[in-house]
């Protein structure tokens, strides 16, 4: 295969508006995404980055496409691990689709190179974050393991 990609889907009982906020607003991401938050103006071409609580930048890129409450595409480069950073920019897509009382959230993370270490690294983190996001929106509580930035990383 000439690229590396994963596709994850989860169904969350929430409105697309609420889920959209949870994906981008610091007050939500700090709770299910290991205390991190994103800095961005959320418009096409805007620069984007994820901040680690100790002040480092985890990942950065820009907004490639944005369709409010429906679709968000970001370019994404790791910034804190040299072996991942050197792979350059990957692409992250969120798609939100109302299905009855739930929203189908599709997360696609891909890069145009085979056997990407970046994609391998993020693919093991996403299922956990998505389970925590679902828990946060449906029960008000995120999962314990995702409430703190892991020590030593």
């Amino acid at each position, binding site marked *: 295969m000439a690229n590396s990609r994963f*596709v994850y889907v989860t169904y969350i009982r929430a409105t697309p508006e609420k889920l959209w906020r949870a994906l981008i607003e610091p007050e939500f991401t700090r709770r299910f995404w290991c205390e991190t938050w994103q800095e961005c103006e959320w418009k096409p071409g805007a620069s984007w980055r994820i901040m680690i609580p100790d002040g480092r930048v985890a990942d950065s890129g820009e907004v490639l496409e944005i369709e409010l409450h429906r679709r968000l595409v970001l370019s994404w480069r790791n910034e804190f691990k040299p072996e991942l950073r050197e792979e350059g920019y990957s692409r992250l897509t969120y798609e939100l689709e109302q299905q009855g009382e739930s929203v189908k959230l599709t997360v696609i993370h891909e890069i145009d190179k085979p056997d990407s270490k970046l994609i391998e690294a993020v693919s093991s983190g996403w*299922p956990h974050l998505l*389970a925590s996001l679902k828990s946060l929106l449906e029960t008000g509580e995120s999962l314990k393991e995702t409430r703190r930035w892991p020590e030593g990383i």
Partner: protein
Amino acid sequence: MDEVFKALADPTRRTLLDRLFENNGQTLGELCERLNMTRQAVTKHLKLLEAANLVVTIWRGREKLHYLNPVPIHEIADRWIGKYERGRLRVLAELKKQLEGETNG
């Protein structure tokens, strides 16, 4: 959750997930070829896996690609496995793997 257990209860469907785990993003044709099964049989199994959200598909050009979606399995694990048990269970799983060799369950 019932659909996840039902989908996982069949050895052929677990094999399909194993194939996708090894090589994610395959077409129906690729999956059939490697499994030596008819298109019809594989399609039927994939349908159940998709209903359980264990397999998701996306279109890229004219190709429909199948991806393993581990999210429902994580949701099951998070329901019953607590924070502190996770580390111990990993050690036990590792020990079992070493003692028994890399055989499939």
